[in-house]
């Protein structure tokens, strides 16, 4: 009788454990399933005109997801927006320098590469960047250069370098990006210094050189600069390769050109990232995977005239774009060019000299 009781209790005990384990497994499984359910809505933000036409619409049609797109012209703006609401966007695009900043501020979610099998399409040279080892929080999108949109009606054809911005003939018709690092970078490069200089003397020298411009008029945002060239208000504008090349392509009757200065320039890689508290992280990952499809990626790069980090997309790309040395600069130029890196505590010097340009 006693033995029977013990057996009964033992059986009951085992039974309870088995039931708990099975229940637990299903609960966890369901939980996992929930995380892998597509949302009906995706809130994203990107630079202005940074998706080819139809790319978003195709995604919406294929997945039945409605995409809400906000755009920006200044990375500081999107940084501020994400900082004040970590769950506002599910997807944004920022440069490597900003990936670095946002990671330091813990603003980015870790990306689950298992949901992005097309990650393998990205060229090996663009994977595992120094600002984001193992692409923990960022996936390369497109890359390009900072250069000059010129109107050859007014400028000497193909002879423009950074130094020429200070040419007496041009100086009043130049637009520089209203971006501390880009404008300072142009000046530093014209002086033969690194765009990431942390030398106070070099920084001051570069800033003094920029004082020759009328800050309020000359330092403008990307669109304004390009517009000013189109409307003949300016002859030369510091701009990004794709934006310039697309504009040139759209205005074949104008004598416009995109020039990568001989001194070398800024090369940047834009990255797709997911803010840390994104509400639809899984859907954003599916969206990233979609953007990395060779055909989709090729469409983006070809229409936007930007160089592609997606190697598998090359065979689908517009040959004109793929073979354009202004999109894919020659090795000689690349070797002389640099990427922006954090400048540490020299940032305060940059802040000071930059602000001085606007407040005389």
């Amino acid at each position, binding site marked *: 009788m006693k033995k029977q009781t013990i057996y009964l209790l033992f059986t009951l005990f085992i039974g309870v454990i088995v039931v708990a384990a099975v229940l637990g497994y299903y609960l966890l499984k369901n939980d996992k399933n929930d995380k892998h359910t597509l949302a009906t809505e995706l809130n994203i933000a990107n630079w202005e005109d940074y998706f080819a036409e139809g790319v978003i619409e195709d995604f919406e049609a294929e997945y039945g997801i409605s995409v809400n797109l906000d755009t920006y012209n200044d990375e*500081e703006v999107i940084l501020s927006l994400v900082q004040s609401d970590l769950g506002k966007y599910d997807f944004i695009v920022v440069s490597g320098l900003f990936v670095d900043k946002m990671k330091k501020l813990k603003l980015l979610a870790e990306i689950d590469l298992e949901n992005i099998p097309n990650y393998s399409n990205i060229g090996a040279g663009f994977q595992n960047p120094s600002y984001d080892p193992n692409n923990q929080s960022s996936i390369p999108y497109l890359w390009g250069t900072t250069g000059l949109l010129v109107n050859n009606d007014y400028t000497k054809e193909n002879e423009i370098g950074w130094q020429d911005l200070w040419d007496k003939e041009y100086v009043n018709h130049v637009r520089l990006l209203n971006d*501390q690092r880009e404008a300072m970078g142009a000046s530093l490069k014209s002086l033969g210094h690194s765009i990431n200089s942390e030398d106070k003397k070099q920084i001051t020298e570069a800033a003094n050189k920029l004082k020759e411009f009328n800050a309020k008029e000359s330092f403008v945002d990307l669109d304004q600069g390009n517009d000013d060239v189109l409307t003949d208000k300016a002859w030369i504008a510091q701009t990004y390769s794709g934006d310039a090349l697309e504009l040139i392509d759209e205005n074949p009757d104008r004598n416009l050109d995109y020039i990568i200065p001989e001194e070398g320039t800024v090369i940047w890689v834009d990255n797709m990232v997911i803010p840390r508290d994104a509400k639809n992280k899984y859907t954003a990952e599916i969206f990233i995977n979609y953007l990395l499809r060779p055909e989709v990626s090729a469409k983006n790069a070809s229409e936007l005239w930007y160089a592609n980090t997606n190697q598998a997309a090359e065979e689908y790309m517009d040959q004109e774009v793929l073979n354009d040395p202004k999109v894919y600069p020659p090795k000689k130029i690349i070797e002389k060019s640099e990427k922006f890196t954090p*400048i540490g*505590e020299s*940032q305060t*010097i940059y802040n*000071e000299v930059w602000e001085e340009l606007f*407040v005389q």
Partner: protein
Amino acid sequence: MKEKTRLSLKIKLGLAITLVGIIPIIISATVSIGLARKTILDAKNESLQSIAEAKKSIIESLLYSNYVNTKLIAGKSTFESPDSSKDEIKEELVKINTIYPEYDDLSVVNLDGHVIASINYDYEGKWLEKDWFLEAKEGKTTISGAQTILDPFHTVIIFATPIIDENDKTRAILITQLPIDRVWASIEENVDRNSRFTILADENKRIIYHPSSEELFNTLPQGVNQYSQNKGGFFQTVQNGESLLVGYETFDDEFFSEMNWKIFVFEKESVVLKAISSLELSIIAASIGALIIAAVFGFRLGFQFLKPIKELKTAARNIGKGKLSFRANVKTHDEFSELAKIFNEMAEKIENLSKNLEKKVKQKTKELEEKNRVLKKSNAVMVGRELKMIKLKEEIDSLKQESKGKRE
């Protein structure tokens, strides 16, 4: 067959009585420990909430005084005058910083969001993108949430106030930056032991101050956020396998309501319980003492109950040995004494019976002895006669012999 272990009734009874004593002791000990624990934890929780509230008040008053200071500083004539040069403004800012060294940086920013003069120029942010800057432009003195400056990495609270010129127009904005470390220093009293720590979270549930800098800017753990939805209170949570007691308060003063910060005071439960454990130990010690007493008394009671049985046992054994006059001496006035009385009566009867029997035996013996004596006497007479007869026979025989010889 295995022989069953025999437990003497004495031990059985002792154990039974002890057990009956132990159960209430164990129950009362458990209840007291539970009650003590609950009482102390409740008191601790309430005190954690009070600490959170006290710290919150300190922070609020610190922020308020900086708010007032910023307003005061903005009234300096150097700032108000349109004739002041950039260098003069900077000089004034440096001077002010010596009076108010708590500020990391002081800046005067024009309405376009460009810095006219600053001591350190360490804020790179786009002023025109910030609500608190725009509100200051509208004439309101504002406090930013926690703002992070990347290089060098630090977090500040920014106060922005309009600088009004003599025509009552906003000329520029004065910005002061109070490092969050300063806020922290104000509440980090020495009483904070390792076991207790405080964290501050902003309106986005992000940690803006934590003793471990790695936790900075992380979102509040779910286990903390879900229990802290009220204005204030306390709860228990488990973080990294450690059970924690938490008291919290919200910055709900009208003045800071937009900041909506929350302050949390954590204390490791294990440390609190350690304090409780000495109390628990004394309860356990007292219980063990009570258990020993229960056992001693139990066994003594057991012995007492069994004393009459022992007495009866001795009596029975003695009577068995033949000491029929032996009597059981039981004075318990219960069933045992009745039993002893019956036993003694029985013994008495046996003794009496035995005594009568002896008397009869003696009498019979006496009678037999008498008969024996008479028999012995008659026997002697008979033997004497027989001997005389033998002698006579012998004499006859010898006479016969003599006469025979004479004839021959």
